[in-house]
């Protein structure tokens, strides 16, 4: 006997209710995730944006005899406590390098001490009552103000918050990632090409395949141990350098690139391979001229995402000595350097309150670069995506 519409509708009502419920639950999950993301970004922005501003003070510098021994002597005693000590230390150096300066005076904006900076930003500070009064007066005169913090982008780490910046770490990150890319990209792509296009499907290749997939899931700190044991202890690669960091991160990025490349190669339809074989291509010509160009957008997207992942990695770099106090921009691949997340990690451990905003500022820079990299990956995919 066939069912009437009424019977069917009664059943359907229950089913529709169920799907509506599921829809609301999934939308709720999405909303919650979005909310956390917004909260995270808002918190980072509130904490990190002040790091891009820094108190600067206009002082008269008197290059006298005493100043060549102790920089503070060049400044008015009233403001000398308010000026960054890194600046005071620079004065004797300047005089030594340029003796003509002796006896001259100069008025310019210089870095203020981080306590002044924190006072102006309304954070906890250690200024005395009289110093606060002086600061207030200087602000009223226009000789003390919050200005864009170029130091943050032009210098390396420092024990003094006002003088510390992320340049050394940013350069270190670029150098480390260059090493990672130079190692992981060719090896990863060629491995995937071999496994997908050349290797016979036998027990050995299956074992290799399973192991590569497992490698992608290994805790990253183990790659650090591997780097320490093999690269540093066995091959004697210098520690703390972009070279060893890049090599270690390359180990970590390899499986990501291999898996992404294999997926990209597999998505190239066989009809293209047949067409190429049909006109008399050798296996390598098929891969080079037809399969790889089609797979390239996928390969690039996967590699960029793998690199972005490597860029945010800290744990394996602790083991190879890249999480350290590195005040200078590394001049070569074999000299000490640090990377952005390591710098953030270092700052997060500093006791001074002023480093809190540096930490958040560093995170903002790291996030900006990551978003840029991921956007590039999406754009590359869109740009080179071809129909066939």
């Amino acid at each position: 006997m066939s069912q009437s519409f009424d019977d069917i509708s009664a059943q359907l009502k229950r089913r529709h209710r169920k799907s509506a419920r599921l829809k609301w639950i999934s939308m709720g999950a999405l909303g919650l995730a979005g909310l956390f993301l917004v909260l995270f970004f808002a918190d980072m922005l509130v904490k990190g944006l002040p790091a891009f501003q820094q108190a600067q003070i206009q002082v008269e510098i008197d290059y006298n005899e005493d100043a060549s021994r102790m920089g503070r002597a060049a400044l008015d005693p009233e403001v000398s406590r308010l000026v960054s000590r890194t600046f005071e230390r620079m004065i004797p150096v300047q005089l030594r390098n340029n003796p003509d300066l002796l006896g001259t005076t100069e008025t310019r904006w210089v870095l203020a001490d981080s306590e002044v900076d924190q006072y102006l930003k309304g954070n906890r500070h250690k200024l005395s009552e009289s110093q606060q009064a002086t600061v207030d007066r200087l602000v009223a005169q226009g000789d003390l103000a919050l200005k864009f913090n170029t130091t943050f982008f032009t210098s390396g780490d420092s024990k003094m918050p006002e003088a510390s910046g992320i340049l050394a770490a940013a350069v270190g990150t670029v150098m480390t990632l260059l090493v990672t890319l130079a190692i992981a990209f060719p090896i990863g792509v060629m491995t995937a090409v071999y496994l997908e296009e050349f290797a016979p499907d036998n027990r050995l290749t299956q074992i290799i395949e399973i192991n590569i997939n497992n490698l992608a899931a290994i805790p990253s700190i183990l790659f650090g141990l591997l780097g320490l044991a093999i690269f540093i202890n066995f091959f004697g690669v210098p520690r703390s350098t972009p070279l060893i960091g890049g090599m270690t991160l390359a180990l970590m990025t390899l499986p990501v690139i291999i898996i992404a490349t294999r997926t990209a190669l597999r998505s190239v339809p066989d009809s293209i391979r047949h067409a190429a074989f049909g006109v008399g291509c050798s296996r390598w010509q098929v891969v080079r001229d037809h399969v790889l160009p089609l797979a390239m957008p996928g390969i690039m997207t996967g590699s960029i995402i793998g690199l972005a992942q490597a860029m945010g990695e800290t744990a394996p770099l602790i083991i190879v000595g890249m999480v350290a106090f590195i005040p200078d921009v590394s001049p070569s691949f074999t000299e000490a350097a640090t990377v952005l997340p390591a710098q953030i990690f270092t700052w997060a451990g500093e006791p001074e309150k002023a480093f809190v905003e540096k930490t958040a500022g560093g995170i903002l820079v790291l996030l900006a670069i990551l978003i840029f990299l991921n956007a590039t990956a999406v754009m590359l995919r869109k740009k080179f995506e071809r129909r066939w």
Partner: protein
Amino acid sequence: MSRHESSRPEPGQPVTRNADAHHELSIRVRDLSLWYGDSQALKNINIDIYQKNITALIGPSGCGKSTFLRCLNRMNDLIPNVHLEGLVEMDGFDVNAVKMDEVALRRRVGMVFQKPNPFPKSIYDNVAYAPRMHDLVSRKADQDELVEKALRDAGLWEEVKDKLHQPGTSLSGGQQQRLCIARAIAVQPDVILMDEPTSALDPISTATIEDLMDKLKRQFTIITVTHNMQQAARVADYTAFFHLGEIIEYNNTKTMFANPATKKAEDYITGRYG
């Protein structure tokens, strides 16, 4: 007359001959058997294929006709677990010999596939790629000339001469298939294999391709697999009927369709099964 014109008919020769057709041997196949793993797909195939004719391979699905076609340019090498016995001879060379380079073979035996599969490159590069790869042309002018000739021979030149640098995939299905034919003939092969070249096309594109095949057979030996009985009757000079991995009947097309020698072929041709 060819050396196979002897009094005792050799296996693989058609029963009767088309008196006005060419009779020079192109490909000689003797006792060819092929296995995918354990299952045998071809059983003792014997066939002589004649130059500058169209030979149609017909038969129900799974009868081994496409497998046989792929033996002729060793495309079966790409499939794992294929095992093969017997002789496929072209120009006196065993194409399956170890020393025979499959690239050299495919240079002389071109292929057109069931689904049009132009390279995701420009129309021009689709045609120019293979000649460039095989070093048939060096100067740009020669290359242009070769591309034009191949496209003219494939009957596509008038339609695409103003958009040679647009992607090959932007053409219609029938045009794409003719582009694939142009790509195959650009290297001047001896033989062109066609694996159901019109099965993905509409009737008008199909008619165009059939006309084209008729013209091309002046220059090339064409072997085509088809499911379309009328197509075989229209274009082919010789027809081989495959069934369960065997050639049941091989004859000139007129005789085959007018007066099939075997019951199976007759039933298939008249549409009783298949």
